[in-house]
């Protein structure tokens, strides 16, 4: 089997996505500037002269025409310079890179948890096909699917942080533990991130469970399973080396998009547990009228989403060459 990557369709895909992204960002750039509200307002205080407000506006380049601002933005963005955040007084790129490692860690752990737990539960349910466990799990997943994260998050905080006092309710680490060992730090992080990761993965878990469960069911009815079973291949082997890989295939496309969205920030969870992630950064930028940061966050989110769905496609390609043609659409 030839192992060459289908460069042309992939390139085409990337270009389209990049173009869509460019349009979105441009649209946003104009939108935030024509919208009411003014970023210089936050600098008003009794001690300040109104002249300073004008100065601030000038330094934000807000006194210029929109198209002038836009052109200079595009020019700068091409060289990787997204401007300086109004609120942080630092380059947008730096601000975003400050929160990105945490966001990725947070998103990947929640993603891994929901994927693995979803798979294991689906296997479990499949084993108990149509028995009480299976029904219970599918009912339970339907219930879980309907619980918004701000409900589950707050209830968890109430039970685990307020009543039982097992887990901290916010932040990512205990500040003050400066000279502690790596191991202690790890434990500290884990304790802080346990509840948020759990809450974040609970919303995705039922989806994966359902996906896997239904795929198993479907594939089981297919001829090749019957054939394998007739040939005396063990159930365990069928599951491990046929049913699961076959199901993975269709899930990866969904998972790619899902991970991308997680990367761009799990807004509600971050708000509830006051975590320093992309979601909260974005919403604070929006509420603080921090135009360069809004645009920067959107751009980052867009790039991450394109990247993950591309990654998903590549993995799928390696699993199944037949899909190359499907990608073209």
């Amino acid at each position, binding site marked *: 089997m030839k192992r060459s990557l289908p460069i042309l369709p992939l390139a085409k895909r990337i270009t389209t996505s990049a173009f869509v992204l460019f349009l979105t960002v441009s649209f946003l750039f104009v939108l935030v500037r024509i919208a009411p509200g003014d970023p210089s307002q936050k600098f008003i205080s009794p001690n300040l002269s109104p002249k300073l407000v004008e100065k601030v506006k000038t330094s934000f380049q807000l006194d210029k025409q929109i198209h002038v601002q836009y052109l200079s933005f595009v020019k700068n963005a091409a060289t990787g310079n997204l401007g300086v955040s109004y609120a942080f007084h630092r380059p947008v790129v730096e601000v975003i890179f400050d929160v990105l490692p945490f966001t990725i860690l947070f998103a990947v752990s929640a993603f891994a948890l929901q994927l693995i737990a979803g798979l294991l539960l689906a296997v479990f349910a499949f084993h108990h096909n149509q028995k009480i466990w299976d029904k219970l799990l599918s009912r339970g997943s339907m219930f879980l699917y309907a619980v918004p994260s701000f409900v589950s998050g707050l*209830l968890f905080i109430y039970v685990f942080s307020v009543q039982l006092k097992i887990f901290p309710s916010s932040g990512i680490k205990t500040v003050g533990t400066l000279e502690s060992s790596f191991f202690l730090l790890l434990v500290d992080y884990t304790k802080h991130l346990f509840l948020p990761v759990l809450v974040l993965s609970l919303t995705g878990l039922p989806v994966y469970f359902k996906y896997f469960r239904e795929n198993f069911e479907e594939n089981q009815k297919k001829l090749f399973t019957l054939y394998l079973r007739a040939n005396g291949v063990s159930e365990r082997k069928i599951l491990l080396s046929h049913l699961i890989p076959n199901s993975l295939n269709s899930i990866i496309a969904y998972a790619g998009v899902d991970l991308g969205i997680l990367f761009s920030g799990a807004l509600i969870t971050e708000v509830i547990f006051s975590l320093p992630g992309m979601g909260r950064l974005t919403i604070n930028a929006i509420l603080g009228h921090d135009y360069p940061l809004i645009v920067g966050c959107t751009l980052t989110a867009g790039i991450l989403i394109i990247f993950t769905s591309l990654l998903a496609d590549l993995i799928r390609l390696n699993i199944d060459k037949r899909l190359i043609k499907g990608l073209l659409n």
Partner: protein
Amino acid sequence: MLLASYLGLLFSDYRTALDQFSLNMADYFCSLFLIIAIPVFLYFKRKKLPTLKTFSFLHYSVTVIFYIFLFAPVITNDNFDFQKDISVTRLLPPFSSIHALHLKSDTKKPGRLNDFLSLKRNVVKNSFDDKIVFYDSLRQNKSNVVCFQNGLLISLPLSSIDLLNGKPKISMRHFVLGSDEFGRDIFNRIIYGTRISLLIGFCAVILSLIIGVVLGFLAGFSGGVTDVLLSRLTDLFLSFPIIFFIILILAFFGNSFISVIVVLGFSGWMSLFRIVKGEILSLKTKDYFITAQQLGLSGTKLLLREALPVIAVPVIVNTVFQFGNVVLSESALSFLGLGIGNDFPSWGAMINSGQEYLAQAWWMIFFPGFAIVLTLITVNDLGRKLAHQFNPRMHA
């Protein structure tokens, strides 16, 4: 009774009657009308109805939610904003009751209008009532009644109090699901919150439906450039976490009842668009369609006649799911403080305010949360059942 009185007033003094008309009252009339009309209607149509045995959890919950939606004023018979004597009534746990002392009401003035007004006050409740006083404990001496309100003392002359056999008239007010930080009844607010959630859901979904179907038809019909443009637009909407756009629009352009509906409506049309477009494209390749076209029948007319029934099923199913999404989004927005404002109670906003009292009052979060979960389960279930019924092979 109120209706009769109002009608009387309407005939006798048309102008005043119009001034008296308010939405709350209309709401009350409608609820009253429906509560009588529906059983009557059901009675006449009883043969066509499914028997009780086929009723499942889903039927029950759909019925209950609709019932609440329609009859909110009749169920609670209280203003959702009612508050009084916060010191005594705030943050009460579920199933608590509070004593209320009744003050003498103003002497009635005669006249049709005043009769009507006093009746109206009894039916359409206000958010205040200066004729009652809540208290923890009470002491009565010769000329005064002293109420204790959480450390505060209020002394009232006996002459101002409504007496019953020489004793002050006392009633109990029950807070079935507890009260919030203003001493407002959580049960009432959840009931009225149902209306807001469902109303926003209906309106936003209808908006999405119109946009999705119209654009879908457009893309499917004309193909070519329009199709490409619209498809790219859909990609654009689908490729980003839409919640940020919603927040941005609401934060920059202001949030209100209408803007929430519009924004949610505009952010949910993509899947409908794809379904409609897909169905129409597949229809165009069908043999009978091509034959009909060759026979000289108008393509547009044909498409409309043929396409509508075909797309109806997936569109309805999708709409139901979309409805669930909107209900969820609305409560999430309200939770973030970007909902419809605080003129009306909303589940998400209730949870948001409960967040501050998390350690003291779990009921402020639990019950509205339960309402959201119940609604979402019901809607998702309904969607799944519908999909199954129309097309057993389709996966929802």
